[in-house]
């Protein structure tokens, strides 16, 4: 029959049934009238809130940046100095300084920056080994409030492989001239103080100057310390041949900078050398004391340590990440996933799906309405539970040793709203998988496996899964990069810094992805599952 094809008569939907929101209202009514589902969401909220009490139980002695696992040691945490903003900092370096009063300028030319490893020996001493110039090894000029750790400062710095930088008050970093320093490519550095404002300049020839950055250091006193410094900084890669048996795990690097044409606009009073933070085998500061050597027209400054924020494993205080207050998130996720999957699979099981699709023949709209309802339920439940958990957990953590980092209101809001988003997207994912497989047990298992198990693997005794690499977003940690569990990064309360190479361990609350990147990964999973669910719902008989 090729001829006479007739377009079948299709009835039109009544105008009021074209509207989307009555459908959402109908689905909401379905949801709220099933007592078991409402109870399960209540259980999810309660579990996350109660989790704050379990997560903030940090009575296992000094954990600091490293969760004390297995070997229980109640050793006292070393004190971590705090910077002007209340943040924990590393402030260990060698400082050749003199007191200066009022406004003025310091200018130098740097012709060399070299480095060497400082290796701990089995008898408790230290020896030097070649090859220790690190990406963030630093030497340069600095204006600092005083010589106590954590005081305000601004510095112009030549680094190992990150060019010239201006850094101030530990967390701020701005790039200047790129490239390495050498005798044939010297770097001129200048700091100009005007009241509480310090401006940094750099130059390749000493005549053409470029402003790099301007730091405002509130409360800077009239008399400050100005001078030259060197700090070996944290280790990126430690050569395997130095890691012989019997060598303790502690090691460091020393940086040596050569300075010429040193000019101060203030009256000169002579250089004093100080190891900021102390130095020597029995000190908490640098392993080896720094040195100041005078040559013909040069000053050579060598020092260990670092001037940086104390994030990742650089933090050794006894504070904890605020994320501990949200430790119950997974306990809450499981009942929510069960409810979200059942929101559609129960329709298949009871045959209600045929009534639903008769009432809403546009199948995609039915799926969308269900996604809106279950997503909203997940978001509100997550937001409310996280707000309660943060409110309960913050004072508990303060009592147990404090927070590792001050947490801004904005970060707290992101953690709470992020927990809501994490739960909402997981619920939509469960709904979509439930639509695809139509069997509740299988849907629940699939979603729990892709959302919960990766987090467990990342924490487990499996080195390949752990985010261990150095630097923010370091290598490894695949479970928290490619699965929906990546969205746990929304709960990260502690910051990472590009100018600090450190291990950022999961146990201390660091994730391999940035918060919004983690959420994007989870959303991609949910979107893909929804697309497949939409396709199958339209193609299949109900």
């Amino acid at each position, binding site marked *: 029959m090729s001829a006479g094809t007739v377009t079948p008569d299709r009835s039109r939907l009544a105008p009021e049934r074209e509207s989307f929101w009555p459908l959402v209202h109908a689905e909401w009514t379905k949801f709220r009238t099933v007592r078991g589902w409402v109870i399960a969401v209540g259980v999810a909220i309660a579990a996350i809130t109660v989790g704050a009490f379990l997560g903030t139980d940090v009575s296992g002695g000094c954990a600091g940046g490293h969760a004390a696992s297995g070997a229980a040691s109640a050793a006292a945490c070393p004190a971590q100095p705090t910077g002007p903003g209340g943040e924990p900092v590393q402030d260990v370096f060698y400082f050749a300084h003199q007191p200066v009063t009022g406004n003025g300028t310091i200018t130098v030319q740097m012709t060399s920056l070299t480095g060497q490893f400082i290796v701990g020996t089995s008898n408790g001493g230290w020896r030097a080994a070649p090859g220790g110039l690190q990406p963030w090894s630093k030497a340069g000029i600095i204006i600092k409030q005083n010589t106590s750790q954590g005081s305000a400062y601004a510095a112009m710095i030549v680094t190992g492989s990150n060019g010239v930088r201006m850094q101030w008050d530990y967390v701020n970093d701005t790039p200047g001239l790129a490239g390495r320093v050498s005798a044939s490519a010297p770097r001129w550095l200048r700091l100009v103080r005007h009241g509480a404002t310090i401006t940094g300049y750099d130059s390749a020839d000493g005549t053409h100057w470029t402003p790099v950055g301007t730091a405002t250091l509130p409360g800077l006193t009239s008399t400050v310390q100005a001078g030259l410094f060197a700090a070996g900084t944290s280790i990126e890669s430690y050569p395997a041949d130095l890691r012989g048996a019997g060598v303790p795990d502690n090691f460091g690097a020393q940086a040596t900078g050569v300075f010429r044409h040193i000019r101060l606009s203030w009256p000169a009073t002579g250089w004093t050398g100080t190891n900021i933070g102390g130095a020597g085998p029995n000190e908490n500061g640098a392993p080896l004391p720094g040195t100041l050597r005078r040559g013909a027209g040069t000053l050579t400054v060598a020092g260990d340590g670092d001037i940086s924020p104390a994030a990742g494993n650089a933090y050794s205080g006894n504070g904890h990440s605020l994320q501990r207050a949200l430790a119950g998130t997974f306990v809450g996720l499981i009942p929510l996933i*069960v409810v979200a999957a059942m929101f559609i699979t129960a329709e298949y099981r009871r045959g209600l799906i045929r009534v639903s699709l008769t009432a809403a023949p546009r199948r995609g709209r039915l799926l969308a309405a269900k996604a809106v309802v279950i997503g909203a339920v997940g978001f509100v439940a997550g937001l409310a539970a996280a707000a309660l958990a943060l409110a309960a957990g913050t004072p508990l953590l303060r009592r147990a040793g404090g927070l590792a980092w001050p947490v801004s209101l904005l970060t707290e809001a992101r953690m709470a709203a992020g927990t809501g988003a994490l739960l909402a997207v997981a619920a939509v994912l469960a709904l979509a998988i439930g639509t695809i497989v139509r069997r509740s047990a299988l849907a629940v298992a699939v979603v*729990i496996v892709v959302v919960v198990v990766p987090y467990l*693997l990342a924490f487990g005794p499996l080195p390949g899964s752990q985010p261990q690499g150095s630097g923010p977003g370091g290598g490894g940690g695949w479970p928290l990069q490619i699965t929906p569990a990546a969205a746990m990064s929304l709960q990260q309360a502690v910051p990472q810094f590009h100018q600090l190479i450190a291990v950022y361990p999961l146990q201390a609350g660091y994730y391999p992805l940035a918060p919004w990147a983690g959420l994007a990964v989870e959303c991609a999973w949910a979107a893909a599952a929804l697309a497949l669910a939409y396709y199958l719902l339209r193609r299949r008989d109900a």
Partner: protein
Amino acid sequence: MNLTGQALKAEWTKYRTVAGPSWLLAGVVALTVAIGVAEASVTHCLSAACGIDPATVSFTGIYPGQAVAAVAGVLAIGNEYSTGMIKLSLTAMPQRLTWFLAKATVLTAPVLTASALAVAGAALAGRLILPGHGFTAAHGYASLTSATDVRAAAGAVLYLALIALLSLGLAAAARDPAAAIGLVLGLLYLFPLAAAVISNPALARHLDQIGPLPAGLDAQATIGVKGLPLAPWQGLGVTAAWTAGALLLGALALTLRDA
């Protein structure tokens, strides 16, 4: 043929004539081997003191694989409830305990087979990949097929079967498959999650001792066995105790309650 034999034959006929269970068991094998291969190929032992357990690496897939085994266990009885078949089954076999035991037995044999295949595949993958990643004699891994490794593999096979039976018991108690799988996976995964996020080491160790998952995984360790929260067979014993408890609960619920 006596009553038990008839019950076994009937349950076996039900089990083998539905496609779902075979797909689930194939899923257990595929997931366990695939994740094991993935983890082994990103793991490197760089020095003699790296302290990485090659069996733990190879058997990483047990973590997600057991969820599929749990689904197989839940659906073995949950499908009877969700389709209403249970009424017919109990009419034909009024001795509910006999029926339940036949159900458990019929589930055990294919799950053990799938579990053995999954563990053998994962172990073989580890044996092929890991020596090239620094798990060599020079780093203290003389052989990857010693008696300890055989014990770890046997422990892993038994573990998966125990999880399927645990799920069967809880599904009989909960009746609803979705609630049952939520309960089982919560029971499995929440103990190690809680142990990982709390920093009180004494409490974490206790959680690792009483949780069915972490205790059962102790049977898969091949290095550092002395430092484990439980001895290997003790650990599997804890899992077996959870399974026995769940089966007892399921049997009680089945005999005391209307279907």
